[in-house]
């Protein structure tokens, strides 16, 4: 069996090498990829979509339909992870441990009892509990607003510079995950509950597909942002630019929420423990 696998690998390697012999030269300006469709994008994307960044124009407008499905792929991955890992029938632990923050004295409460809500001077100790670490917490706290601001910048500035919904969404999601790592899952869940991550990931994709659907309902083709001109109060070219921005926001929300949801499910093996 191993020999057969080796043979298959060698055969395919040979085929790939055989194929490369007829490749166009590296960086050849007269290669088919550089002369057939791309010149149209390079020459006309600004006048057709009012977006200076050609990559953004191709990604979110000319081939915006692909991008809608790429966002859906991310949503599907998040949903798949949730579907497989989420533990619905949780078993309540017999006893819980609570640590008094000021003194470090630990209480054990038996028979499924728990402290009243809002007992701030106690913290629960379980598998998700992270010992207090002043330096890490403070450093992350300080850096988080800047990361989030940068994420918003990356989303908003995708029209002009490298960036856009996917990149900005990932950065924003990473900021939330950083908070979860430096603090703990429980306090993160209080800020961004699981329910909200699922709603946001679905809602983000719905913003994208919904924009396309509105174009369709206005009588144009699906995702033809020019149809939004009437609603947005701009000319059809500018409407394309705005349409791209709207769907980029949808992408950013979906990607951010899916990242966080993946982290929640993977970090707690789907149990989410207390706090829900």
């Amino acid at each position, binding site marked *: 069996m191993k020999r057969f696998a080796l043979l298959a690998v060698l055969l*395919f390697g040979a*085929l*790939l090498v*055989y*194929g*490369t*012999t*007829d*490749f*166009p030269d590296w960086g050849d300006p007269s*290669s*088919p*990829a*550089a*002369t*057939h*469709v*791309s010149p*149209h*994008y390079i020459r006309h994307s600004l006048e057709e979509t009012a977006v200076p960044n050609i990559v953004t124009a191709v990604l979110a*407008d*000319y*081939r*915006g*339909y*692909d991008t809608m*499905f*790429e966002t*859906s*792929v991310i*949503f*599907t*991955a998040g*949903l*798949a992870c*949730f*579907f*497989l890992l989420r533990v*619905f*029938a949780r078993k309540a632990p017999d006893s819980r441990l609570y640590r008094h923050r000021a003194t470090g004295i630990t209480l054990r409460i038996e028979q499924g009892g728990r402290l009243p809500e809002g007992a701030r001077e106690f913290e629960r100790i379980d598998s998700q509990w992270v010992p207090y670490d002043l330096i890490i917490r403070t450093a992350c706290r300080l850096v988080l607003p800047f990361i989030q601001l940068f994420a918003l910048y990356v989303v908003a500035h995708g029209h002009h510079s490298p960036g856009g919904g996917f990149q900005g969404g990932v950065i924003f999601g990473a900021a939330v995950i950083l908070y979860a790592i430096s603090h703990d899952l429980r306090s993160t869940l209080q800020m961004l509950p699981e*329910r909200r991550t*699922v*709603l946001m*990931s*679905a*809602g983000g*994709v*719905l913003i994208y*597909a*919904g924009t*396309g*659907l509105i174009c*369709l309902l206005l009588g*144009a*083709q*699906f*995702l*033809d*942002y*020019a149809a939004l001109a009437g609603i947005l109060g701009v000319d059809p070219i500018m409407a394309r630019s705005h349409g791209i921005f709207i769907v980029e926001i949808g992408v950013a929300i979906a990607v951010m929420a899916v990242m966080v949801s993946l982290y929640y499910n993977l970090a707690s093996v789907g149990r989410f423990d207390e706090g829900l």
Partner: protein
Amino acid sequence: MSAHFPALIVVSPLMAAMVVAILAWVRPGACLPLAVVTLAGSLWAAAGMLWRVVVSGPFAYHLGNWPPPIGIAYQIDHLNALVLTAMAAVALVNLLATWRHARRDFAERVNYFYALYLLFCAGTYGIIVTGDAFNLFVLLEITSISGYALVGMGKRDAALASLNYIFMGTIGASFYLLGVGYLYLVTGTLNMADLAMILPRLYGNKVVTAAFIIAMTGLFMKMALFPLHGWLPNAYSESSSPVRSLIAPLTTKTMVYVMVRVALYVFPVDFSFGHLAFAQPAVWLAVTSIVAASLMALSQTSLKRMLAYVLIAEVGYMVGGFWLGNRMGMTGAILHIVNDAAMTLCAFLAVGSLRQQLADDSFKALRGAFRRMPWTMAVLVVAGLSMIGVPPTCGFFSKWYLIGGALAAGQWAFVGALIFSSLINAVLFFRIFEIGFFEPFAASDHGHPPDLAYAEAPATVIAPMLVTAAGLVVLGLLTGRIVTRIIDAAIPAAIL
């Protein structure tokens, strides 16, 4: 509205999936009705497009109003309208027949199951209608990821089966993507119609040859043709029954459709069948696939595993019939995509019902099944007869075309493989019928009277199954019209 059917048929299940994921938190009871209504709407749209194609010919839909090749276009023609209608019908009937099982198998997760189900359907429909080689890959990802998740949420070894499926499926999809990348390298376009215009100038190009072989190998892997079938039996037998009867009819058949689409409408016909010496090896591969899978089916001891191997043999039918390269064989292959989807659904629905009621589908558990579950077993009989190829079920007619094509092409090995496989199927199914009908023998049970209480599934499960079984006969009787009105127009005139 009907002008937008090509976009709506893909976008509506997609958006419905998102809405279901939200409703699962807000109003759980609304998820199932929404899923059913959406799938019914998709079937309506698919049938509408089939009608339009038959009446007034193929048409295109430009997404974002960008003309191809700079934008993405959907191209609806006889070939994909037919396959799409079949797949939309399968998806709807399966949900109607198995939502009770799903509720039992998935419990609190069932609403997310509906969301993944809709995503899977959106991907499948998109793969079928798209006219863009890269868009096809993106949709393939959606179908695959939701498929992995659905398979993974099964019984005992489902996670391992799903992991295997992920490895094989990802490699297959990557191969297809690599092929598309190679084609982009030498043509600069991703649109299928545009590719078909440019490629005739590039026949001697080694990149095109490599792209063809790589993409086809990837597709063979995704459709589980014999040496690349390793993922299928476990993935199908370990998954839970609503999932099995969804992905078994849809996945492999959709991939066979993609192979037909790529070999006829992306690569020019004279390239696929004339320039490359690919057809003859492909037929031999199909012959091996049919014989090997039939023999392996013979050695299985549970119904669902046996059917999984029968399914691999059926893939061999379609691949072999297509690569015969003549009109009759190709007609048989395309007809078999539709027929096989219907009979796979029929057989797996019956198995799902048996499994739910008897809690087991090993051959032993089937003893006395005809008395305990007469309707389910009747449906299984129809599916079995169709897989064997007994008229007037549809399986007979596609096999007729396939054998006719093989005779015309002088491919005696393929004729032999088809007949051999039909005989094996006869043995397989009549063995089951015998166990279900005649056993348990009175003397063999050590004096304990066997439990033969009536245990038929509820009417909501039986009714869609009976519709499917009737569909097999109706499809068979409509064969003439399907072939003359639709399939004849789907095959390029260059093929005689």
